[in-house]
């Protein structure tokens, strides 16, 4: 039934279009000892937050939905857009009910935003989560375990309630389920992109940044069932892998524009943190060790993680091949040093592999897509002609 698909999407949109986080406020309202923990892109170990009885909330900026005034007063024009909308939202009191914020170590801007948070919101617990760039279990692993312990200790301090290993295992199991469902969704999309348009898949996935893991799991299942029951018609489009949007997210209009211009998105690094750990995290033994091991051995490639002996251009080529993409679109946020500095290296490799690509820049509040539409259309046409 068509309305089931729409119903699932409407459930996603309800949380996505609500910059006041009504869903989170409702969740908080259901118990006196409840807490919300915000986290910035890309990845936070939500298992720990959920196990502590709290709701993890992914904060990905306000997209194009908010006028930025105070945010521009805090950031110079040559800095990317996401910290502006995040600070604007914060100063407007949209996170007033949150107890803690996690700032993962992905770039200098998000790093310094953590300090601004300390200065502006001294009542919230601020955790700068330093991902190790050393993947030796005895070195980087040991350090990361300490980071996770520190996070857990502080969440326990906030809630005043100890967290058992069993609770951590249980939360991990629910997120394992979430990872499996997301994999299913991405596989389905890659097989039949016409039936899983990016503009839909993206909303379903992104809703998981706000919904509890159980609600999100249900949403994915419902959407998958609805889409499979009533497939959309096939379309003649090229298959494209999208790279560069690992932190600041492109506006939905941009994703739609790419699809309308004849590019079916079959792989991407949007909302990367939701799928950062590839595969299951162990649900026995020491739960924190399991999360550490998952980070060290199962984390996906991204501009924020040192690639050392495991170059990300190899990973890109693997992924492009795996999802049978015809080409790659680099879609990087303006002024994003990590994504933009990766681009030439990745492009060089694609040249060697003879994988065609196109490049754009955007910011989360980009409103005009005319140029992108033309370029993406040309890209799609050129690939079709070569076939």
């Amino acid at each position: 039934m068509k309305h089931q698909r729409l119903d699932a999407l409407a459930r996603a949109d309800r949380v996505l279009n609500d910059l006041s986080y009504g869903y989170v406020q409702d969740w908080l309202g259901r118990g006196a000892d409840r807490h919300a923990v915000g986290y910035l892109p890309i990845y936070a170990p939500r298992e720990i937050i959920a196990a502590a009885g709290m709701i993890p909330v992914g904060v990905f900026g306000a997209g194009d939905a908010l006028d930025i005034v105070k945010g521009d007063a805090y950031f110079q024009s040559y800095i990317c857009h996401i910290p502006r909308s995040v600070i604007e939202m914060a100063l407007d009191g949209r996170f007033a009910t949150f107890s803690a914020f996690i700032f993962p170590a992905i770039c200098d801007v998000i790093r310094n935003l953590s300090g601004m948070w300390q200065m502006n919101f001294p009542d919230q617990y601020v955790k700068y989560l330093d991902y190790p760039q050393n993947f030796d279990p005895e070195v980087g692993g040991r350090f990361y375990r300490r980071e996770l312990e520190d996070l857990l200790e502080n969440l326990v301090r906030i809630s005043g309630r100890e967290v058992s290993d069993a609770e951590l295992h249980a939360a991990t199991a629910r997120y394992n389920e979430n990872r499996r469902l997301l994999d299913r969704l991405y596989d389905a999309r890659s097989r039949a992109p016409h039936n899983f348009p990016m503009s839909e898949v993206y909303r379903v996935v992104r809703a998981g940044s706000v919904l509890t893991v159980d609600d999100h799991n249900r949403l994915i299942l419902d959407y998958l069932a609805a889409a499979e029951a009533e497939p959309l018609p096939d379309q003649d489009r090229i298959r494209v892998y999208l790279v560069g949007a690992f932190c600041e997210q492109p506006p939905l209009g941009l994703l739609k524009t790419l699809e309308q211009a004849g590019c079916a998105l079959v792989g991407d690094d949007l909302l990367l943190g939701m799928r950062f750990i590839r595969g299951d995290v162990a649900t026995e033994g020491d739960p924190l060790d399991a999360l550490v091991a998952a980070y060290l051995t199962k984390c996906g490639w991204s501009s924020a993680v040192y690639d050392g002996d495991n170059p990300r251009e190899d990973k890109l080529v693997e992924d492009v091949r795996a999802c049978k993409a015809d080409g790659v679109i680099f879609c990087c946020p303006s002024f994003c040093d990590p994504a933009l500095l990766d681009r030439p290296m990745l492009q060089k490799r694609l040249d060697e592999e003879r994988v065609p690509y196109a490049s754009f820049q955007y910011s989360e509040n980009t409103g005009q897509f005319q140029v992108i539409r033309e370029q993406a259309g040309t890209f799609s046409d050129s690939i079709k002609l070569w076939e």
Partner: protein
Amino acid sequence: MDLYLGIDLGSTTSKAVAVGEDGRILGRGITNTRSNYRVASDIAREEALHNARFAHLARAMESRGYPASRHEAIYSDLALHFRLEGYLKRLDALARECERTNAALSPEEAVPGECLAEVFEILRREAPATFDRQARNDSSKFFRDIAGTAFADAAEEVSTRWKLSSEPLVAIYERSIVPAENDRIEMDFGRSLTSACARTLENHPEERENSGFVKALEDATKQAVALDLVTKDMVGTGYGRQLLPFPEESIRSEILCHGLGAHRIFPETRTVLDIGGQDTKAIQVNGEGVVTSFHMNDRCAAGCGRYLGYIADELAISVKDLGPLACKADKTIRISSTCTVFAGAELRDLLNLGEKRENILAGLHRAIVLRAFSLLARSGGVHNEFTFTGGVAKNVAVVQYTQEMVRRNYGAITMNVHPDSIYMGALGAALFALRAARGESLPAAGVAEPDRSTRGARRMEIKA
């Protein structure tokens, strides 16, 4: 009478303001900034001094029982005709320049001398009418604006008669206008005023027949001419201030001048927003008009007056019509960028999508205000009273959105908008000159009633 001058050499216009010993505004002048800064500043200054004499004349008439309020039409005619005298002088300079240009051209490019002479004959003959039509209700028109259209019309007329193309004539004008503008012209105030009086009385039979009035005007004119104006000191400011032939100690940053000028007009001012052609300034001042903090836009001119200029060009309408048009919007389209480079493309894109012109314009105006408020926030917010100056403060839509933003972000505030905000920098500079002469470091606040006499200065109480 001793006076102190402030000269503000802006990127598009040059302004001069003269203040008296007591800090009161005596006169002001404005001209377009041209390649020769010295001439631009001289013209603005001369106009300010003439304006001071004019003000004196008006006061003299008032003391004789003929206040401007009762004889508004004749006074505005007199002012117009006085400007006309200047226009005619400059027209002579243009004629000389055109002759010179024509003489230097090759025989193929040149036009017959008589042909050129005919054009100027028409220009001179039509000058009063032209001036009345173009300049009466628009004091922002400079020589080149008025002469340019008039020349094109006259050239058309003459070339048709001579069965020639008007192009060579227009080409001569194009080459001659800049040197003609930069020509130094001596204006004899007395002679010009007398001539303007005669011309004015012709059109006003009632006053002409009133011997008392005529006599009073003669006396007042004499008094204004005889007035001994002594410029005690001058201070320069503005974009081109470093190019002014002034010593370093007589140069002030326009930030300080704007702050002081705005504070002078509205002494309770604590926050000043100035949006000019090239830049936007957010300034905080203390109770003495001393700047305590400021922020300016970064290297791009997004959201400044020039941006509105691009938009107007793109829509092929006058900049003046933008604000009123935007006010007719039934919704405000969200515009993400105030980038001048992309303005045109974004606008066309939206028009192609079928958005109404008014609604797009509303969005553009709002974007400008949002950007200005970021600068205000950087500089420390908006404090009571808030004074909005600069050319863009004339735009009704911008003012409207500004009020809205103040209300939403800062609550109850008194907001001042000044129609002659364009003179604010020059006024501040003049006050600095006065201050330097009086040996006071702090501006001479409170030495006289603030001059709020300028018609149309607006105060609005913004309710929380």
